[in-house]
């Protein structure tokens, strides 16, 4: 028998080897070459168009993290373009302050943009989707109106001259290269974020918010950082836009422009960098080919948006995703490797016990849990069974902070767990899975599992932007651990496959792998055997026993009595929110009330 590591190694190059990294980078390199060589074959007017595409992409690249990755419907991002354009222009014009050099003005605009990005974005933490969309729309309207009214600064309807960048960027092609360079840097930075734990966390917030919370992802801090970055680059784009226009009035910043940015991302596809980049180029260039249609351009964008939403929600990125159209083997079995669990989980964590004391919670008049005592010990599998509505999942939700108990306490090693602090649970090494698997369908299986290890990364958001060493170390560590976790649950051959192509049973094991990334002291499983074949249930049992042997306390909510009696050290039976019986599997099996009420034999 090979060592586990030796067995894992051959599968890695196929999944993420240098060949696939290169082919992913190829379109970007091609665009880079075309961009650098553009002045050789482009005429004067096409230079303006190309520069405009670069300026738009600087904004769209940042907005892409907000819309495409975090899934926040920010429609009015033109507000930040306006803000950046006016800040840069007014500071360089010297009508209000002493005239500043354009680079300094651009840097100040970026700072202002970051602050306003945060202000516009933060309501997203509290508001539902449509509400947030409307507030950004309102903000865009307001900024334009202020620009009109604040004549002493902005020149009102008359406008203000844009900045002129000094040599070597003052000529048309000089300025083009300046914008192109910034666009390239933005592409690189956002691609870095996209491939980092932050990018994965954003997609988790978008598609599987409860899973993000259970993995310890702190939404406010992460979204805050993304909104600041997005605001800063949008304001920089504004400064460039003002220089390109050479004179700006509030009329230049219509909502149509905002819609263009937004639609470029959706045409490109959510969760992609290349797609929105192509979308931006397409939308900038398209009207030039159809001069009579210029007046209709926003109309056509809107039609395009409707078609995309209804027909191809995945956008260009999905059309270009050839890799995931290849068929995957149809008769594939999940063969977990319990022997890898010890290496994955490391030394048994010393966490004491997880206890519930007299916990009670009612919804309206219904007592969901009514004075429940429970003790989950490290290294043991604790079964929680009972008929539907007996409070099993509610118990799990109290432990993981989704519900606050009205009475009693949940303690970890004697210390009470704070109520409602969901994402803090991961830091206490309490992991969980869900009754319906919560997965990011458009991400690969490997990326989904890596989400589980988010809190173990050490690099900051800025380090990821710039791909500094700590970020790269985090990524290597997370990837290796995730591959090990996938091998342990028996899914490593599917690592590179889009998660939404998996079968239901495979999603269950993916969730377990993601939970194991936390090296949990306690693992809470909500009906992990539901929808599994008898054979798979047997393998699941062996896997869970191995996890318990490594020192983890397992709470198993389940309907499959066989699984419960096979692997549990201790079983609690619930009925109507109260404990009906507790003891070893043998005791429960012979408990008369339980047999009568529940086991039905």
């Amino acid at each position: 028998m090979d060592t586990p590591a030796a067995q894992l190694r051959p599968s890695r190059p196929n999944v993420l080897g240098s060949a696939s990294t290169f082919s992913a980078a190829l379109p970007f390199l091609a665009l880079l070459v075309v961009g650098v060589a553009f002045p050789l074959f482009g005429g004067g007017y096409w230079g303006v168009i190309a520069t405009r595409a670069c300026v738009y992409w600087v904004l769209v690249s940042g907005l892409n993290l907000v819309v495409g990755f975090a899934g926040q419907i920010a429609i009015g991002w033109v507000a930040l373009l306006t803000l950046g354009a006016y800040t840069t222009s007014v500071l360089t014009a010297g009508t209000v302050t002493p005239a500043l050099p354009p680079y300094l003005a651009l840097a100040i605009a970026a700072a202002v943009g970051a602050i306003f990005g945060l202000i516009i974005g933060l309501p997203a933490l509290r508001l539902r989707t449509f509400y947030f969309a409307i507030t950004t729309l309102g903000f865009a309207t307001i900024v334009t109106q202020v620009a009109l009214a604040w004549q002493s600064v902005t020149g009102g309807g008359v406008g203000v001259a844009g900045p002129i960048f000094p040599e070597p960027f003052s000529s048309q092609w000089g300025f083009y290269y300046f914008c192109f360079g910034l666009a390239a840097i933005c592409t690189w930075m956002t691609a870095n974020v996209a491939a980092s734990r932050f990018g994965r966390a954003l997609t988790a917030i978008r598609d599987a918010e409860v899973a993000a919370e259970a993995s310890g992802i702190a939404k406010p801090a992460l979204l805050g950082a993304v909104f600041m970055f997005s605001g800063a680059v949008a304001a920089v784009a504004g400064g460039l836009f003002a220089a390109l226009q050479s004179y700006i009035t509030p009329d230049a910043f219509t909502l149509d422009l905002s819609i263009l940015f937004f639609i470029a991302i959706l045409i490109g596809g959510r969760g992609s960098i290349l797609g929105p980049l192509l979308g931006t180029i397409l939308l900038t260039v398209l009207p030039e080919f159809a001069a009579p249609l210029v007046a209709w351009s926003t109309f056509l964008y809107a039609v395009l948006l409707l078609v995309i939403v209804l027909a191809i929600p995945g956008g260009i990125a999905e059309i270009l995703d050839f890799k995931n159209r290849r068929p995957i083997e149809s008769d594939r079995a999940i063969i977990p490797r319990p022997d890898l669990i010890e290496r994955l989980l490391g030394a048994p964590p010393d966490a004491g016990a997880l206890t519930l004391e007299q916990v009670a919670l009612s919804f309206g008049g219904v007592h969901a849990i009514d004075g429940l005592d429970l003790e989950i010990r490290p290294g043991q599998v604790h079964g929680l069974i009972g008929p539907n509505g007996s409070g099993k999942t509610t118990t799990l939700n109290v432990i993981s902070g989704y519900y606050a108990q009205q009475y009693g306490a949940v303690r970890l090693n004697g210390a009470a767990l704070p109520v409602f602090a969901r994402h803090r649970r991961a830091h206490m090494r309490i992991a969980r899975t869900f009754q319906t698997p919560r997965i990011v369908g458009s991400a690969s299986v490997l990326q989904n599992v890596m989400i589980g290890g988010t809190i173990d990364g050490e690099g900051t958001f800025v380090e990821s932007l710039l791909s500094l060493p700590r970020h790269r170390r985090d990524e290597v560590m997370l990837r290796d651990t995730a591959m090990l976790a996938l091998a342990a649950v028996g899914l490593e051959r599917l690592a590179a496959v889009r998660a939404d192509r998996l079968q239901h049973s495979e999603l269950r094991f993916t969730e377990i792998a993601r939970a194991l990334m936390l090296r949990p002291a306690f693992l809470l499983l909500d009906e992990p055997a539901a929808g599994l074949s008898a054979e798979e249930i047997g393998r699941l049992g062996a896997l869970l026993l191995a996890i318990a042997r490594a020192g983890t306390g397992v709470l198993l909510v389940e309907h499959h009595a066989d699984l419960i009696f096979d692997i549990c050290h201790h079983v609690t039976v619930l009925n109507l929110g109260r404990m009906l019986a507790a003891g070893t599997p043998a005791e429960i099996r012979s408990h008369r009330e339980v047999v009568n009420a529940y086991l039905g034999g």
Partner: protein
Amino acid sequence: MVESIVSTGLAIGCIYALIGITYNVMFSASRVFSFTAGTLGMLGGVLGSLFIARMGMPAAVGFFLALAGGAVLGIVTEIVAVRPVLRSLDQHLYVLSTLALALIIQQFTAIEWSTEPQPFPRLFAIARGGFDQQFWLPMLACAAVIVGLELLYRHTLIGRAFLAIAEDTYAARALGLPERSLRMTSYALAGVIGALAGFAGGEMLLAFFANAPLLTFYGFVPVALGGMGNNRGAVVAGLLLGLFQQTANFLVGGIFASVAVFTVFIIVLLARPEGLAGAALQRRV
């Protein structure tokens, strides 16, 4: 001065409240907010001006045709932008599809009608002055809609079916209610109300394509503050919004009044995301 603030404020407030009710009627039938709410208001004004001023129809005919246009747009919204995405509500695609439809109509209006505000005809040949028709028409429309909806919901079978759908779609479907046609009827009704708002407020707002985004925003404020689906809340919040906006208009000037409205809107929403009169929803895990 105070008189002018109050009459303008209440009239504008009634238009906002009507757009808010438009949002609510669509929301009750489908759990979806539609960006076309403000577009309907804009269209009411543009169609009124088109039929009466440009094509010279009698005011009453123009009125009914404008409302019919609103109803058609409501039904189109349901078929094109809402029904296809209802199955995946959690992906919030409706935000995008209704936005797209709203933009399509808005742009079409801008190109085919005019990019400049066009005058709206005076409906009654009464001399201007005092408490003018441009003020009392929106108020009358608002009152008529509130009374009409109240009668519909309380005293007709179809109105009760609407309520049932709004309360629990699955249960209503299980009872054998024709959910789809009720939803379409609701959208047609919402279209009529939205167009009525724009028609009644035509003289104040003019027939202008850019009214669409403004009404979409200001019409949503009463919904957000009054609690979603709550028509009474929308009327109260709409009237307050109108008065507040006009007062701020007078005190600090037109454009900073918008800033004031926006600031208050954001602060209230952040403090109470469920609205001043709403209750928090429990999230399902």
